């Protein structure tokens, strides 16, 4: 392949993936992990909110 051709191939590839809209087929796995992280965040937020109350009660 000539150097001009290499440049052309990479340019075409960049254009092609910029247009492609197919995403990961593993959506369920990511949805599950997102839910886990949200639950973790909620737990952390609730324990932070609980913290001052506990101190007040003490």
């Amino acid at each position: 392949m000539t150097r001009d051709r290499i440049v052309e191939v990479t340019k075409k590839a960049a254009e092609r993936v910029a247009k492609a809209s197919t995403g990961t087929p593993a959506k369920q796995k990511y949805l599950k992990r997102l839910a886990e992280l949200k639950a973790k965040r909620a737990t952390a937020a609730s324990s932070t909110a609980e913290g001052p109350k506990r101190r007040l009660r003490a």
Partner: protein
Amino acid sequence: MAYEFDIETDPDPPFTDNLGTEIVEFALGYDLDRDVVVLMSVMLVPVDEAHDLRFGIREKSLVSDWKISAPDYTKESTDRYIPKEWRTFVIIQIMRAVRKLIDEAQPDAITMETYYSKLPEKALKKYATLSAAVHSCGYKTVDSFRDEASQKDYWLFGKV
């Protein structure tokens, strides 16, 4: 933005998109407020007689099935989604993905280019690392050069 870095260490095998591109994706993290997974997408794109190797960050909505961003190759995106102390690990994961893709597609010729022009030696290190991953799959560097017009760097790999 409530982004949480949460890298996926054991990604699924390669899949092929509607245009024939072989892809390995792994999660970098999640935006918990927007219901978005941030993915590193490593691709072998078939173009005529070659396959072009590229990797970029995509945002995939987990509520709208159709909504996925184009790959983002910028330093800003890397800074936003990959903590500095994890960059080396991400490169290792990309190397693993490259090997899986090449094993699957077995292309005759592979091209690669830098996103930025006039990259200094230090910034080319990751491309050298990825070249090593390609070499480990039974390929050699046939040509590598900096294009005069764009000042980007290019590689062509062929089977040994």
